């Protein structure tokens, strides 16, 4: 029997489940290490050498080096972890959301001030497919 995942039809969303936790383990371990200043200093002094300490996949490593935020999530990263890398780069949660949604900082901030993204038309993947948004 395989694990039932009734949450995979939600658009624009990665649910960080046990499979993603397994795949993203080293990537997330690296990200959370940046919680501490001494590790941030070491990482910022030489990203490649610092990343050698975390045996992640080549794709994960490339996504980190290129700051491909959505790709990190696709490869098992979790937002509470990847946000530590963003914070190291001077990007806060709301700015990061602006990047991940492709809206940009100002448009995203404006959407939030106007009450956020409505659930209407944003509940199922087929709703996004029909609008060509996936």
């Amino acid at each position, binding site marked *: 029997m395989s694990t039932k995942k*009734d949450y995979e039809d939600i658009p*624009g*969303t990665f649910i960080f489940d046990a499979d993603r936790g397994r795949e993203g383990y080293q990537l997330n*371990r690296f990200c959370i290490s940046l919680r501490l200043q001494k590790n941030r200093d070491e990482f910022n002094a030489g990203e490649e050498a610092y990343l050698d300490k975390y045996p992640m996949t080549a794709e994960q490593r490339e996504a980190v080096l290129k700051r491909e935020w959505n790709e990190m999530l696709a490869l098992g990263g979790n937002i509470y972890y990847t946000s530590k890398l963003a914070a190291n780069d001077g990007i806060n949660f709301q700015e990061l*959301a602006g990047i991940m949604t492709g809206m940009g900082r100002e448009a995203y901030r404006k959407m*939030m001030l106007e009450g956020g*993204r409505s659930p209407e038309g944003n509940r199922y993947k087929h709703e996004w497919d029909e609008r060509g948004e996936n």
Partner: protein
Amino acid sequence: MARITAGVGCSHVPAIGVAMDTKNTQAPYWKPCFAGFEKSRKWMKEANADVIFLVYNDHCTAFDASCIPTFALGCAAEFHPADEGWGPRPVPVVKNHQKMASHIAQSLILDEFDITIMNEMEVDHGLTVPLSLMFGEHGVDDEWPALVIPLCVNVVQYPAPTGNRCYNLGKAIRLAVESYDEDLNVVIFGTGGMSHQLQYKRAGLINSEWDAEFLDRLTSDPVGLSQMPHVEYLREAGSEGVEMVMWHVMRGSLDDEVREVHRHYHVPASNTAVGHIILENKSS
């Protein structure tokens, strides 16, 4: 005997802590968010709680991916605010009622809730932001007005415990508190939420209608509410909206019949809908 007299539901958005720590609460962006807590702070003072039982989630601070307990009870003498990447919050060290925490741990496990016991733990914004919202400004050298027993719930890696499990844990916490032989007034906090999604292309989701119904049903239909499947939280309230399961622990520990004495709802705080409610037991 100790008794739980009231429950508080409260968001724990980190940006709220930053706004307080940088004295920015009267800025136009933040003013309406904090205005809704003025009454709460008066209420909190009058409630005169000896102990806060605080249900929250750690955000990869005390528990990184290497260890993910579903329920972990803080049993240390004290808990220091953690450095989450921008230095520890300038708020007081959190002091436990350690003897009562040990009693609750023992009672819960014999009641078949296999919790993890934490004898050392740092606490992050998930715990300190609700304390700041309810108790107001307190500096590093100050003391929180009550002792705090922290309970961490995993909501970061799916699946979080079910709403039903959380509700029943609340019932077991009540039994544990009531079997503690010291005259203590305990207020329980359930924190997190409300609707929000922090990640990927659907980030920014807010569902005010869903949030309002959730707040209503805490009084009118708490048992039915606790039966909500995870997929509904994820779809309707955003991937991080599943944090709301922690409010069921709070609700389960109260009387079946409660009085709603205060409610506040505000969008946005950063990416999140701020929700807040105060429920008093009808019997107290």
